[in-house]
């Protein structure tokens, strides 16, 4: 279990310098991961305010104005179903990313690169799906404050996916160039030689080689969890009042 935590980059976030950083002036690995953590914290708070706007406006639902009657019949289960699809693809992408992290931890670099590429592809599909959902709902952004709130919640996911795709593209390109391996391992020769001689390689890659993957992993997991939160919001606070 602790090995999984380590592989996913969650160990030592709030702890003092790791062993690897003892001789360095600054624990660069922890610094980058902590910075990403604080960025995500700020992003979460902004998301809370968007969620809060949704709940606030729904709470003021009087005289059928939250979802006006001409729009109510267009809602159906559209938003919930669409959000479920988006959530599913995002979660799949996050799971594949974590598999890739595990592969990197185990130094199976070809699988790591492939998994990252698949995760990136899933995130691209998710981005496209989210844009499609926004553009093809049966209501318009001007159709009441539910439509407005749903659009901003979905649009925020577009922002997450866009940034996530950019970061993921960097991971894939850099992984393909071998930048997440120790220099001596970049040709894969050490692995082949060690296997041929029946010996084990030295300890796993240093935190330095995992820093970017871990930090960007935090963001990808958060983006997936955000889509889950939106889906849960639509279940807990559905567009239409109870009984309608």
């Amino acid at each position: 279990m602790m090995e999984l935590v380590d592989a996913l980059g969650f160990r030592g976030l709030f702890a003092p310098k790791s062993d690897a950083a003892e001789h360095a002036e600054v624990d660069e690995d922890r610094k980058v991961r902590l910075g990403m953590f604080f960025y995500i914290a700020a992003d979460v708070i902004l998301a809370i305010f968007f969620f809060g706007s949704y709940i606030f406006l729904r709470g003021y639902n009087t005289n059928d104005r939250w979802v006006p009657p001409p729009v109510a019949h267009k809602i159906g289960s559209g938003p919930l179903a669409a959000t479920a699809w988006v959530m599913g693809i995002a979660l799949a992408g996050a799971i594949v990313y974590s598999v890739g992290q595990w592969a990197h931890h185990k130094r199976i670099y070809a699988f790591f690169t492939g998994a990252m590429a698949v995760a990136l592809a899933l995130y691209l599909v998710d981005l496209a799906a989210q844009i499609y959902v926004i553009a093809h709902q049966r209501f318009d952004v001007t159709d009441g404050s539910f439509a407005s709130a749903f659009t901003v919640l979905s649009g925020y996911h577009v922002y997450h996916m866009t940034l996530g795709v950019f970061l993921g593209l960097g991971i894939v390109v850099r992984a393909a160039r071998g930048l997440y391996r120790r220099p001596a391992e970049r040709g894969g020769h050490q692995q082949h030689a060690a296997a041929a001689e029946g010996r084990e390689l030295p300890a796993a890659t240093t935190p330095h080689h995992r820093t970017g993957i871990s930090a960007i992993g935090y963001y990808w997991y958060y983006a997936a969890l955000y889509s889950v939160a939106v889906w849960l919001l639509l279940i807990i606070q559905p567009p239409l009042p109870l009984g309608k």
Partner: protein
Amino acid sequence: MSGRSEPAGAAVETGTGFQGINRFWYYLWPSHVTGVVLAFVGYYAGSAITGMFVGTDDYHGDQTLLIGFVGLVLGWLIGVGALTLPLQWVFGVAEPNNRHEQERLTYPRDGWWRYFRFNTDHKAIGIQYLLLVLGMLAIGGLLAMLIRANLMHPGSLLVGTDTYNTLVSMHGMLMISTMFTAIVGPFGNFVIPIMIGARDMAFPRLNALSWHLAIVGVVIFLFQPFVGGTQTGWTFYAPLADQTGRGGDAFAFGVLVIMVSSALAAINIITTVITMRAPGMTWTRLPVFVWGILGANILTATATTSINAALIEIMLDRGWQTTFFLNTAPNQATPVTGGGQAFLSEVLFWFFGHPEVYLIALPGFAVVLEIVPVFSRKPLYTYGLSVIGIMGVTAISFMVWGHHLFVSGWEQQLRGFYMGTTELISIPTGFVFLGILGTLWRGNLWMSVPMAWVFAFLWTFLIGGITGVYLSDVPADIQLHGNYFVIAHFHYVILGSALWAFFAAVTYWFPKMTGRYMDERLGWIHFWTVQVFFNMTFGIFFWLGLEGLPRRVADYSSKFDLGMSLASIFAFCLGGAMLVFFANVVWSWLYGEKAGPNPWRAKTLEWQTPTPVPIENFETIPVVTTWPYNYGTAEAEPQATVAGVTAEPAMGPHEPTMGP
């Protein structure tokens, strides 16, 4: 200027022929020049492309303007080179921790031109922030002079009422933005990494990005008068925010960019303080200035998200006809019932707005607490309680915002809770005052200009704070809400905490940033003229408020004529007094008396470095061995001894005879 070190024997390129073109291109790209050019290109490209698709009728014009601003920001960032490195990272060209690349981006050989670049050196960014803050202060002050000129007499409006309302809106938000950047920007950037024994901020390129976003946000904000103005007041409430002229787009977008810049800077500073402290720099040895900035940046990273949400929703209402805040969609041929609530904008705004004033005040507390032991030659009294006070203010500031909504018509039973929390926040504030006064008590006082501003802070913030307690009481607030009493209150607290502390900080750290003293005579002239005219101007406002004069009015009853005329005259004098400060900064920077590395004989780490401070701050990272406020005690040593700097510098020319 401080912070630049050249390798010994560095060759200077000659500028003839092909070498000359290369050299010209080297200085030009990337720089602020190319940033401005591409900003124009981006703006026109964004608005032209949008206009082709949506047209330029009344409400589509908002879309065109907003997308144009997006293009402006992107063009600016591309032009200054801010996006080059992320793209290099994506394609695996740049290594994030490449020392050679990091040094190149500090432009050590470019002289003064390095301040017109995407410079990642925190010292250069601190200077850039100082210049930006001085510019914002000048423009905000000019707007104030225009407001007072319009209010000289009843019926003496020089501009139309819409323009007057725009002046008020711009002055308010611009000065608020100036005040929360004034100390954190220049001094948080320049001083904090050195103070904690680090070579730079945690994320130097993010630091540079923050400044470049801040300046473009201010520029967009200043577009307002040219595109129709904003008549909402600084609070930018819906529904007026949805309906005001095109200037509302510039207001919303500009403020959004400024807030994003501040949030990114806050994340950077928080990470820096947590992860980059020198060995031996435990939390209990951390200078109180760092604690104050840390508290302020925790507020920045969290509270600015609230106004960001409000501004995004307002821009969507304005440009895309959503209905967050309106019951009907404006400019639609057939209005639809939308279910929006204007009150939501007040809630979102003030959830930001109140932490925001502590975001302004906390750096001021930090500066005053930092300076007072140096010029009292005494240990900081109740360091621990002062830190608790700072963190207590940080925490409680999220629980008091409802006092801005006492007369908004919301649930009356909520008023009592917010009255209680608002009065409660005066307790941790009192801890800060206790620390200052306890340090002054029986201290060996050195009445220098920075110390004078500490006394001014005590006097001014005390008046502002006590009037705040009156306003926190619901019955008093019902009478005083929305009138000149409130204006007087917040000018006393904001100027008292932030602006006076800013002057103290500039005077205190000027020798380290520039290698020169600020002129003492001009400093004292500035101090006394500001104190006299500030108190005359805003003291009158208290009386005007008690007499019932409402705020934000372009005209008023003749019974207030004498008070308003006097206030305007004193305000003009205050403006003149501020010119003395600007003149002092410019003159001292160019011709001021040279200062040594530690003219104040202070013990924090930034004063143990040479002046100018080297690019990497320290040859080797110091090991901190003691608390930084052991003035006048047997353990009177600096916090650490840095290689190449005398541990106990000789007394400076401005220092009276005094103890350790």
